[in-house]
């Protein structure tokens, strides 16, 4: 009987970990959604043959260019934090630094740091139901004049993608979304 109790205690510990681990994860992400500042990143038209795999939409977010005053401070493959500001054409990078601030996003520098460099953003996939994804694929690739944005909440280096919108209408729910005044 003794081994059974031991096993049960072990099992209880493991089960608690199995069940609480995702809760920590969820609460961290909920925090971002709750307190994060929303930025809208411009989506480029996507290559219609390439971007739809399975049940998600591949996002082709415009890479942002960023000018560095002191490129020698950064190394390739460094982890940096980027602060954004909302522009009339989507969010742009205000500054890069090694220090975390409240509304900064954690990024990895894949290119060699230069005075003027392009930054790859980590928004790549938006998971959706298959039929809907196909529909959105058509909308995103059909007309390059549409203003397509991915809505991202950013807090303390972390981020959550909440929506995709096209011309002020959410592609997920179909309802109009609140756009910052600059973008209207």
């Amino acid at each position, binding site marked *: 009987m003794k081994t*059974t109790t031991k*096993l*049960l205690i*072990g*099992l209880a510990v*493991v*089960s608690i*970990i*199995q*069940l609480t*681990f*995702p809760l920590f*994860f*969820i609460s961290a*992400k909920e925090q971002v959604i709750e307190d994060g500042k929303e930025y809208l990143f411009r989506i480029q038209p996507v290559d219609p043959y390439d971007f739809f795999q399975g*049940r998600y939409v591949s996002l082709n977010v415009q890479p942002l260019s960023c000018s560095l005053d002191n490129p020698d401070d950064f190394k390739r*493959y460094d*982890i940096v934090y980027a602060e954004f500001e909302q522009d009339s054409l989507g969010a742009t990078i205000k500054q890069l630094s090694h220090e975390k601030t409240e509304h900064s996003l*954690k*990024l*990895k520098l894949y290119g060699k740091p230069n005075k003027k460099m392009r930054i790859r953003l*980590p928004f*790549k*996939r*938006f*998971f*959706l*139901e298959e039929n*809907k994804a196909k529909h959105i694929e058509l909308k995103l690739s059909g007309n390059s004049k549409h203003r397509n944005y991915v809505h991202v909440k950013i807090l303390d280096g972390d981020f*959550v*993608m909440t929506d995709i919108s096209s011309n002020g209408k959410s592609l*997920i729910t179909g309802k109009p979304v609140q756009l910052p005044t600059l973008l209207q």
Partner: protein
Amino acid sequence: MNLKDFLEDCRKENIIDQSTVDRMYDHFLSRDKERVINAQNRSQLSQNSKNNGLIITVSIIGVLLIGFGIIYLFAHNWDHLSRSTKTVLSLLPVFLSVLVNVFTVIKRKDNVIWQETAAIFSFLATGSMLALILQVYQLPGIENYFFTYWCILCLPMVYLLKSHSAVFCAMILMLLNLTSNPMDQSALYKIPWFGSLIMFSTLIPYFKRLFTLRQPSSLFTMHQLFVPLVVCLSAIASISGPHSSIWLILFLLLANFHLFGSSVLLRRSDRSPTLMGIIGYIGVSLSLTYLLFSENWGFEKIMEVETHDYRLLFIPLLFGMGIFQLVRYFSKEKMTVHNLYKWIILLPLPFVLMNYLGINALPAYKISLFLIACPVIHLAQNKKDEWQIYPALGIIAVIILSLSYDVSSPISFFLLSLIPSLYYLVPIPLLQEKYKNALSADQVIILCFQFLFLLIASFGGFWMAVKPTEPDPMTNFQVGLIALICVGLIFNAIKVRKQLLAHLNGFPAIFSLLVPTVILIGCVSSANIEHLYSIILLIIGVVVLILSAKKSNLTVANLALGLIGLVMVCRFFDLKMSLTVKGILFILIGSSFFFANYLILKSRKHENNN
């Protein structure tokens, strides 16, 4: 004579008295009964375990199907649910699996079926939960330690449920974990391969138990294969950085596995090689040949790696482990010529050092590999030890192959033609007596290659293409090494001439010597002697045809005719004969097929009538 008669006989001859006879016979009967009961029990037991295995397999498949079905059902209506519902739903399978686990531990403690299915269900539930949560927050798993979390959350099932299938699930997850590419790879503990390593080390108690108890025996054998496989695959999969360091790590890993496979822990009582020992040995032999093909080994740049690559630490670590195992092995065993090869772990050391210091180590490496492979073959032939001879032979074949890249073209053709002969001339003493009068399947393939070489050589155009007008002179080293290989081959043929001559009257052996020789003549002679090859092939065809006709062997006779026909077809392209002559030759060949078959069938009928 059965026992009763025998005892009666003994009594009559006054060897034993009547009471002894009775006691002995009673004892015999009781033992006999016991034996019968034991045999029945055993057969029942094996029947049971067979049934058990079937039920376990079926139930595991069932759980897999049900698990996937549940995931699919959820996924279908996913987008209509709110975020909180999604979260609760994704936690639901884990709740269920926890209930199943508790039930298994309390009520079905020793039931293998429950343990295995509960473990697999737990793996699936946790995996689907993590996948769904990552999906809700739009995170691709590959960048977010998905496999690491999954594996860590489920690893305890190996020990809590004593499940064997959980080990396989965990090993697959560890391999998959290597494919993840998280953004922040800078710190040691955040690198995927490091996570896999730590997770693998948690399985060590399981493997220790399995390898000491050797129960269940099927898993004992299987994991001797899977453990080296997973470890080596992980080493290859996490390649980034200089190839030389990865090669060195792989070599040291395989050498360690070989030593471990022949250690006291895994060794069989009759000292026959274990599966892990064989895999390690073959892997070591093949990985040694990797360096033959690259001029620049790159060991001089081995220190210039990115700062966050900690893999170089493994080189001294693995090396030390190998030396430790070696010393332990030889502290209990006497060092004889037969286990001397275990020092192979030290073999690349001087060459790597030479390369590190900027000296060209390749020629020395080639020649020492050859000089080491020869005695291994010699000793293994005397011991009739197949599993040592084949890797050594493979090394020599790859040395010849790599040489054929270096030298000018006609000689490289000669070198290639040596490889099939090598195979035939060396391992023949291992053939058993019963194969004396037949060719085994692999020998037939080798023969086909030899015929192919002769056929290629019989084209005049081939020699025109490969013979340059001004051939590059070969270096003394190359000439020396080729001569050494040929001399070694001939010496070996002389050494085992008895066995070679006993096999099909020595025909294949003589043929294997003949093919490289005539090709060498073609390579070095300035005259064009391509017709020699056609003539040789024709002669062989005719001789075999006559011999097989005498023995009335239809298959071989038709193959010989086919060979003659093939030579004719080849000449059709490059001989300048009038079309009429060619046509007549073909009609002759075609009709000879019918004629030969007719004659053989007739003689057979004749024999049957007699």
